[in-house]
């Protein structure tokens, strides 16, 4: 899933400072799971903005809404009537959601309230870790399902480096596991340790042409 975190309050306040009528739109998918932009976070941010304006003696009117997926035009189109009532939109979605909103309602400024950070998974309650670097040339078949590109601090394709700490920790961050120790242990369980002896040439980072686009073929 896509992981994001809320921008600093000061930055958000500055973005919406000129506007008195706002629509705050959350997204009910990835950013809801990572506690950054779901219905609840929309409510919290709306309250904070109202309180901040109250303290400044200025008015603000906020409409709150959350759509199932802000990166889908069909779902965003439900907001058409609400967008007509406001001067600006503050989107609590990933970059794709913000751009979908901005593309659907071109006459209304759409501002991002979140910083989209990475593609990851929930490690434990409240902690998400990066799992995929979106390189477009998946390597996981050779590494026991552990991506060294994002989980190794140095992104080594032929690891481990000489700095692995005792206990299999990373030399860059002793809190983190060395990805290549994890890969070794995983391959050992699978009886595929021969893969550790193979050399992998530098990765082709041109696999995904920017902007990425996929045309699916209907079966």
């Amino acid at each position, binding site marked *: 899933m896509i992981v994001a975190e809320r921008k600093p*309050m000061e930055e958000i*306040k500055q973005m919406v400072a000129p506007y008195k009528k706002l629509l705050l739109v959350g997204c009910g998918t990835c950013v809801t799971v990572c506690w950054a932009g779901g219905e*609840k976070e929309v*409510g*919290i941010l709306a*309250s*904070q903005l*109202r*309180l*901040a304006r*109250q*303290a400044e*003696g200025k008015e603000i009117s906020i409409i709150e809404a959350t759509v199932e997926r802000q990166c889908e035009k069909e779902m965003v189109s439900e907001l058409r009537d609400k967008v007509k009532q406001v001067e600006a939109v503050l989107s609590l979605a990933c970059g794709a959601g913000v751009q979908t909103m901005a593309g659907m309602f071109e006459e209304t400024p759409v501002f991002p309230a979140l910083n989209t950070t990475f593609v990851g998974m929930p490690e434990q309650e409240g902690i998400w870790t990066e799992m995929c670097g979106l390189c477009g040339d998946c390597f996981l078949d050779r590494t026991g399902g552990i991506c060294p590109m994002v989980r190794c601090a140095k992104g080594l394709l032929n690891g481990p480096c000489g700095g692995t700490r005792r206990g299999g920790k990373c030399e860059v961050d002793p809190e983190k596991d060395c990805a290549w120790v994890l890969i070794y242990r995983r391959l050992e369980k699978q009886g595929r340790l021969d893969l550790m002896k193979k050399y992998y040439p530098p990765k082709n980072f041109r696999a995904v042409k920017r902007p990425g686009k996929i045309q699916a073929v209907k079966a």
Partner: protein
Amino acid sequence: MSNKIIAFCCEHSAYLAADLAGKQGLHYPENVRLIRVPCAGRVDVTHILKAFEKGAAAVLVVGCEEGACQHSTGNTRAKERVNYSQTLLQEIGMDNRRVEMVNVAPGAPHKFVRIIKEMNEKIKEVGEAK
């Protein structure tokens, strides 16, 4: 301007303590409004912020003593939410002493009265709500 205190009171502890305070004829400031909740853990960050939006000068979340929650972890979760609310208030330049979590046993009416009085004094320091 308002000096209203909203006190979310757990019905297993704080609400009973408040009731007992009434029965014993103990006096506490009349600017407090009690909201009975099934557990302090029911109180969410959005409830706390909404209370401030509606003009509260301070919010108290009053739950069971530590280790005595009827729902095991309601009071510890409430404490975490109150801490988070303090951060959110700070972000927008409000004094985070306006929200506080307190633990009160059902048979402790004097403690209940004391925390209300203390919060009332705190409002005098941080100022009433606009």
